[in-house]
């Protein structure tokens, strides 16, 4: 990094990259993988997500994030569909993951009983 301009150029590029990710219509699943999440079973949730994606041959991006503060409600998982707000689900079990993937990720219907909040863009 040789100058501030270089950083700003990089930022524009990565911002664009992220925009592009939106444009290619790829849903994103984000799993809370802080220590609190892992202790509450986030690894199992992540495994279940990967299994479902594999089984249904879905084109979904799976990433992780840190503790958002609601440790009480871990494991947490966010679903971000292209052009939509990011939806947070909490207190998840492996069975819930299947429902969220079928209803929300594939069909676009939010699973209301499991929802906690919405993160606006």
């Amino acid at each position: 990094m040789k100058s501030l301009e270089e950083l700003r150029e990089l930022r524009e590029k990565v911002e664009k990259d992220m925009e592009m990710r939106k444009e290619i219509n790829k849903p994103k699943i984000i799993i809370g993988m802080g220590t609190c999440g892992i202790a509450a079973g986030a690894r199992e949730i992540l495994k279940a997500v990967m299994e479902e994606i594999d089984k249904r041959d879905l084109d979904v991006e799976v990433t992780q994030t840190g503790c958002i503060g609601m440790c009480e409600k871990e494991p947490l998982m966010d679903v971000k569909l292209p052009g939509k707000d990011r939806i947070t689900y909490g207190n998840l079990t492996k069975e819930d993951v299947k429902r969220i993937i079928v209803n929300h990720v594939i069909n676009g219907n939010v699973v209301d009983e499991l929802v906690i909040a919405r993160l606006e863009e």
Partner: protein
Amino acid sequence: MKDTIYRSHVLICTGTGCVSSGSKEIKHELQDQLAEKDLLNEIKIVETGCHGFCEKGPIMVIYPEGVFYCQIKEEDVAEIVDEHLLKGRIVDRLLFKEPMTEESIPSYKDIDFYKKQHRIALANCGKINPESIEEYIANNGYEAAGRALTEMSPQKIIEEVKNSGLRGRGGGGFPTGLKWQFASDNESDKKYVICNADEGDPGAFMDRSILEGDPHRIIEGMLISGYAIGADEGYVYVRAEYPLAIERLEKAINEAEELGLLGEDIFGSGFNFKLHIKKGAGAFVCGEETALMASIEGRRGMPNPRPPYPAEKGLWGKPTNINNVETYANIPYIINEGSEVFSSIGTENSKGTKVFALTGKIKNTGLVEVPMGTTLREVVFEIGGGLTEDKKYKAIQTGGPSGGCIPEEYLDLPIDYDSLVDVGAMMGSGGMVVMDESTCMVDVARFFLSFTQNESCGKCTPCREGTKRMLEILNRICDGEGKEGDIKLLLELGEHIKATSLCGLGQTAPNPVLSTIKYFRNEYEAHINDNKCPAGVCQELAAGYTINENTCVGCGQCVKVCPVDAITKGDGNYYVIDSEVCISCGACEKKCPVDAISQG
């Protein structure tokens, strides 16, 4: 042939999905019901194909109304026939409910847990991928470092931090800008910056969460600090018990090095900076800055007298700036937004926000970041959602083993560094343990003191011997062997340990005892004078349990849970507890389905 005119059509889905969830049985049941009510000539049953809504099957649609029923069970059919088909009343509970639309979901900023929060240090936590430097940069990351290194002089940065009013978030609350000024003023060929991530307070986990959730923010904060004081090397001292934090930080450092955000000639400014991780072995005292530096140097983690302060003679005798994780996490915000924006948040002498780790008997366990000056009541009851099982609030313990317990009368106290000290507690790193009426305050004091006593490094006598004697007295009191004069002795010992210990550990170790005596002296007196533990926690003092033979239904569940076989069958259909054997654990009381068991 004349077609029969039906007044109603009932469509039953017999797609594979609905059949597997029982639509065939429903159709038969409907046929039986209609025959019974002699409605077969009026109402037509139609089997249909799949509606594509198998999730909610079996599905039934009734015309002419077009009512859509879903997830019907066999036993619902009679109700549909009686209510809907005979009386024309729609069965609400079986109606299909629209799936929640995004608009009907509360936004993060509207839910109680986040409404009062103001996130600066935690801004990215839970929102970005901590293992991707691109996501950090896309969220304006390293902009502050870039501007600081290319557009600001070191002194200008120090002025900004001073003007912001930022104070150390690790517990002491020393003004950060002033600390940087001292380190900057001391001329030397070599200087260091250190990030203290040796988070050891029971119940505190904000530093870990920041390192796990947003490691680049710490790197950026340290980079700016290094440039401001003229240090080209930094250490993050993080406890080895935080493997995930270490892993993410390592990855972040590597990514930053690859992009040239760490290394040589950063942003073309000629400034070089490298960063190392030092894993701590888990000694609580290593959170004390001089002990921490001794540990980095490879020596035993024990504190040294100050002065000289680290800013003068720190790591390997060189001027060193040492700040806590959360302190560094505030730096990029201050540079980006300006000191005025930062200092507009908070109270007169405590600016900005503070992260608290809410634990204990509270509904919303978690991490909250609120502006300084927020009241305890807002934190506990609005953000925290109140106490579990809606029990009565008794006290909140802040500041970990160095802090104190705050009783109900101070719930409306605006939280800042000074207000907490005024009531005998302290900010500490921000751990908040909520206690309800079932907590014994003597036992709490004993818990915290046994922690500090264990972690005392043993270097100075007041802390090493004094905390041991205090703990002995507390143990005695909890065992029902308290003596008159114990409270006075505890107070005397406590004051002496505070006044004469070498480091912060000893100077604050008596705080939990002193503050509980101050606010809950009656509980100490009940233990000593009346041989009673009002909360029923101290087992040696707890009154035995008895069973009310009139209420007892003789189910015998208490017998199964009693760990000492104190419960036997009485003369009638009830049980009795042998008070000689009973250890007052309370297991039977919790199990009893008719509340026949009580204490005393």
